[in-house]
């Protein structure tokens, strides 16, 4: 049986600059993949290629349950069940918290996640549902961004740097929520600079360095030194 997500020999260029060099990885249903690497390693480029927001030129293959994704626009892939929690949250400032959440429901995909269940996952959002989303704290905004993605009931959830700029206590809270999301059987790709946290949650890890895969396998198969070597290249 084909994996849920397959990335095969993916190469990406922005003009003359090559950002990814033959990246291959895969993710099964209900599993979590931690995509780690330093700034500029190509993690966000890889996510862009999967969700259809890539602005560069790409070669290779990205498949969702065998169906090719590369070259298809993000608006089409949303209907296929791919949702992204973008880096920096990217909430819509002129929309309230609930309006932002409802934007995730536009694809009308049926599934476990409803507005009520998102409010149960993040109770604080119900309290602030009529407030402008960008008036919330950073952590609460991240909850809105995650909730918005969940309401699309995706088959694959892509999370780009969800702990960036947040207090440790909030990060812990958000990761606990992600564990509940995972328990519903959703496949997740976690792009993180907090390597230890990402590896603790993930089933598999893939480390990128300057656009190349430097380490890949089960998350608990590598010790700290091995991951650090793959991460920094020395």
């Amino acid at each position: 049986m084909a994996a849920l997500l397959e990335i095969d020999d993916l190469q990406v260029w922005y003009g003359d600059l090559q950002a990814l060099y033959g990246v291959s990885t895969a993710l099964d249903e209900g599993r979590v993949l931690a995509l780690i690497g330093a700034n500029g390693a190509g993690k966000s480029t890889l996510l862009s290629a999967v969700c259809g927001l890539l602005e560069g030129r790409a070669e290779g293959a990205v498949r969702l349950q065998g169906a090719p994704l590369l070259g298809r626009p993000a608006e089409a892939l949303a209907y296929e069940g791919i949702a992204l929690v973008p880096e920096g949250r990217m909430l819509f400032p002129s929309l309230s918290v609930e309006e932002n959440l409802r934007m995730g429901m536009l694809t009308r995909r049926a599934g476990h996640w409803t507005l009520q269940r998102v409010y149960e996952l993040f109770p604080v959002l119900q309290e602030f549902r009529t407030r402008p989303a960008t008036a919330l704290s950073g952590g609460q905004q991240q909850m809105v961004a995650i909730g918005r993605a969940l309401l699309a009931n995706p088959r694959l959830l892509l999370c780009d740097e969800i702990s960036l700029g947040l207090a440790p206590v909030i990060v812990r809270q958000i990761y606990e929520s992600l564990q509940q999301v995972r328990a519903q059987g959703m496949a997740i790709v976690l792009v993180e600079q907090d390597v230890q946290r990402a590896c603790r949650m993930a089933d598999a890890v893939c480390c990128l360095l300057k656009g190349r895969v430097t380490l890949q396998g089960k998350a608990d198969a590598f010790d700290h030194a091995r991951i650090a070597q793959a991460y920094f290249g020395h």
Partner: protein
Amino acid sequence: MDWIETLINGALLGALYGLLGLGLALVFGVMRVVNLAHGEFIVLAAFGGTTLASLAPSVNPLLWILPVALLAFGVGYLLQATLVNRTVRSGDPLIPLLLTFGVGVVLRNLMVEVFGTDPRALDGGAFTQAGIEFLGLRVGVFPITVLFLAAAMFGGLQWLLAHTEWGRIVRATSDNARIVRLMGVRPDRVYNTVMGLALAFAAVAGMLLALRSSFNPYSGVERLLVAFEVVILGGLGSFWGAFAGGIMLGIAQLLGQKFDSNAAALYAHLLFFVILVIRPTGLAGRAS
């Protein structure tokens, strides 16, 4: 009493001015595109109205407003889908500006070619001449109708944007056209609908203005200037601000007319200039 009547009539004229700016405010608010052909589309709709009225003289021209507005919606949708979207994608605001300037020039010359340069007007019959007396004041029935129509259109648009799924999508697309794609939205289609709606509003304004005053193919620049002043006075992208801006311009123009009948428009432009100096972000605009 005379002054009060002038104030009221100015406000009623201003409602029509507000309507002239509504489409321009909508397009700028959502796409950050300044449609320099807006005035020409207003005049084109007026020509459309006069043409239909001449084909069916027994039909009251007011009844043509809806068909002309629907036609304008289609024109706006196609204009956006075939031309403007290509320039919006470039990300450079100068390119759509140049494109709409070009569209305006082409439209103006096409109208000269097809309709000639003689001034025209729509005859609304007794309805546009009728007036009512109230507490010693005389106010036209047609301007009052225009005020209510304009308020309904401003209110309707505001309601659509605030309370419907379409409105939510439009506001989100205006906030971030890239991210909204992740939710399955095609920004191009949103823009097509918005341009269609903007030109439908322009068409209604054009028809109503043609029932009030004469126009020719060169009147577009004058209409665009009023629409610009309305939008900037109100605060870029603010609909109720545009409505208030239109009313202020109308009042300034009629008050100016009382002082100097040859320089009515000058007073409206002066008001625009003064408010721009005092409050550069407009009446409803937020300071950056």
